[in-house]
């Protein structure tokens, strides 16, 4: 049954007033229906462009541009092409333009099809003025919202591209020193870094993580990086820049403390002076920086400061570390730690795998749930990175954790296999037996099973020679006898239950075995192919 109508007019006759509610394209082969829709929508404040078939509608959209329209109202049943055909055509060109489909009473299945094609709304005849007004006002509002979202997204993409171009491009001198894994999940905000070669043999590397992934976060990140550069060029320290920016975030850009509207920034700056063989670490709420020695064993920088934006009275922590016997320095954001926790492996083994994947040009199959940023700065760029021991595990345990030895062993196994792959083959179990024996010795004798005492396990890997190196340290008093001599003289069969059997097993299964600090430190090597 046709909708109520006024005197029919030419379908393409422009209206007199420019619609304050927007412009609607109406498509209906029924001239009476078209007249009703035109009159009703004019009353709502819309400017109406009317057409009588899909081909004509497409011509008008192309001639005037999709952007000229705020919504489309189309009948479903028309000769030659239907309202759904028009909907598909529109969505292929502009997904933000809302379309309302008019159906006859009882055409429910068609309605479902139109919704699955992306129609904003449907109207079932007979249509009242009220229903038409509500549907088209909503459609126009949806179009406006979608277009703003796409505009913002395009802006974020541009901002992200600019940020990556200006801040993450490494020059030749920097590339020689740096291995980088940078996988941001968003266009702006989150993890960022910048690296610069300074005068002399000095380098500045800044890495951080700004809360949020919106335009505000991108702005804060860019502003901070610009400020750091300005301070450096003016001869001011990173610590000064951190303190100033913290006050800026707390006092001028955010409320007191941490709230929903505030932005915070975890950041670390490394100022290398290779001529002086030292690095200055300045950190606000950033994970500890890792220093790796020639054995692949690590120490960490101090921590303790809050992220910027949390507390205006708390400045960054700062320390100066010598680089003697340091092969490389590593910084990473918390995304690495979270990803490693999810995989149930040590973060160092994950780092090693990511670095090696990048080196070999392999698109890593690993997909982190958060931004990933990992930077290694090698002190001597002449040296091939695969000729250096790389850390793959560093864990500290309390003496009573011997009760969880099977769980710990499973983590060691996963971490080793993750970092080294299948190279070890059957030797993996030799290594696991030795780790188990060494750690049980540390738990029972060094820590005496006490939760108050801590022992440490470290592992590293030398890719070129395929050697796994292990170090176990415990806080025990050690002993005064010559353990190696005792192991050499041990006769298990004669004694029955031989003393030091566990250490004897390690010595027998490993390829190189050593003891330091009166037996409180064990070191042993495993060659993948002995």
């Amino acid at each position, binding site marked *: 049954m046709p909708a109520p109508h006024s005197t029919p007019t030419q379908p393409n006759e422009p209206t007199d007033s420019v619609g304050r509610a927007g412009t609607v394209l109406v498509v209906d082969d029924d001239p009476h229906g078209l007249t009703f829709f035109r009159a009703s929508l004019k009353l709502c404040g819309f400017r109406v462009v009317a057409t009588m078939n899909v081909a004509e509608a497409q011509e008008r959209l192309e001639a005037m541009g999709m952007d000229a329209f705020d919504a489309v109202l189309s009948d479903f049943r028309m000769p030659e092409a239907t309202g759904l055909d028009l909907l598909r055509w529109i969505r292929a060109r502009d997904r933000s333009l809302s379309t309302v489909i008019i159906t006859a009473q009882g055409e429910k299945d068609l309605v479902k099809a139109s919704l699955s094609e992306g129609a904003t709304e449907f109207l079932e005849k007979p249509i009242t003025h009220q229903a038409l007004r509500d549907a088209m006002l909503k459609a126009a509002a949806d179009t406006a919202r979608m277009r703003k979202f796409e505009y913002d997204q395009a802006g974020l993409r541009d901002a992200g591209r600019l940020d990556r171009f200006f801040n993450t491009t490494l020059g030749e001198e920097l590339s020689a020193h740096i291995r980088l894994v940078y996988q941001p999940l968003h266009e702006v905000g989150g993890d960022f870094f910048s690296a610069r070669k300074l005068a002399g043999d000095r380098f500045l590397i800044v890495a951080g993580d700004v809360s949020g992934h919106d335009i505000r976060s991108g702005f804060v990140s860019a502003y901070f990086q610009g400020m750091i550069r300005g301070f450096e060029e003016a001869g001011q320290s990173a610590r000064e820049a951190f303190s100033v920016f913290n006050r800026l975030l707390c006092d001028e850009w955010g409320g007191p403390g941490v709230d929903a509207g505030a932005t915070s920034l975890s950041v670390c700056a490394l100022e290398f002076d290779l001529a002086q063989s030292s690095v200055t670490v300045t950190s606000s709420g950033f994970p500890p920086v890792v220093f790796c020695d020639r054995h692949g064993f690590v120490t960490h920088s101090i921590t303790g400061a809050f992220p910027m934006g949390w507390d205006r009275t708390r400045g960054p922590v700062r320390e100066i570390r010598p680089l003697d016997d340091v092969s490389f320095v590593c910084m990473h954001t918390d995304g690495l730690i979270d990803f490693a926790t999810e995989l149930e492996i040590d973060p160092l083994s994950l780092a090693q795998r990511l670095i090696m994947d990048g080196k070999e040009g392999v698109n890593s199959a690993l997909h982190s749930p958060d931004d990933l940023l990992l930077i290694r700065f090698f002190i001597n760029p002449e040296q091939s990175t695969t000729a250096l021991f790389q850390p793959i595990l560093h864990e500290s345990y309390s003496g009573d954790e011997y009760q969880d030895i099977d769980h710990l062993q499973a983590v060691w196994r996963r971490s080793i296999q993750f970092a080294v792959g299948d190279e070890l083959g059957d030797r993996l179990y030799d290594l696991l037996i030795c780790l188990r024996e060494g750690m049980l010795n540390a738990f029972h004798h060094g820590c005496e099973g006490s939760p108050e005492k801590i022992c440490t396990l470290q592992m590293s890997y030398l890719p070129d020679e395929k050697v796994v190196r292990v170090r176990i340290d415990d806080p025990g008093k050690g002993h005064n006898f010559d353990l190696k001599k005792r192991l050499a003289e041990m006769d298990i069969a004669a004694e029955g239950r031989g003393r030091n*059997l566990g250490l004897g097993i390690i010595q027998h299964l490993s390829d190189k075995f050593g003891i330091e600090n009166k037996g409180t430190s064990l070191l042993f090597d495993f060659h993948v192919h002995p």
Partner: protein
Amino acid sequence: MSTRELISSELKASKKRLVIPINSDITSSTVDAVGEAFREAVAQHPMETWKTIYFDLRNARMIDSKGVNWLFSEVRNLQTRGKIVVFQVASPAIHRVMEFSGLEQLVIMKFRRRRQTR
């Protein structure tokens, strides 16, 4: 793992052979349960019905010093009673530990290397 899953037993009466498959690593975490299950399995078969006992360790990948000590005790105990002890081993790591610890000298060792897939 239940006792039955941990250890089973099969008597081959015509050969006077008792076979004990041990389906677990023998470490500080498992040695008590393995030991108890082993004693129960052996107790099911009167001593006079078997002369040789096979420890089928082909499903074990690892053994630590506590496991070695337990095996040593059981081997000594059985040999004192006049039994012949055979170890069936597939893990190269376990074989190496038995070589070093001297267990290989006390028993008949049947080692056939199998790639560890577990």
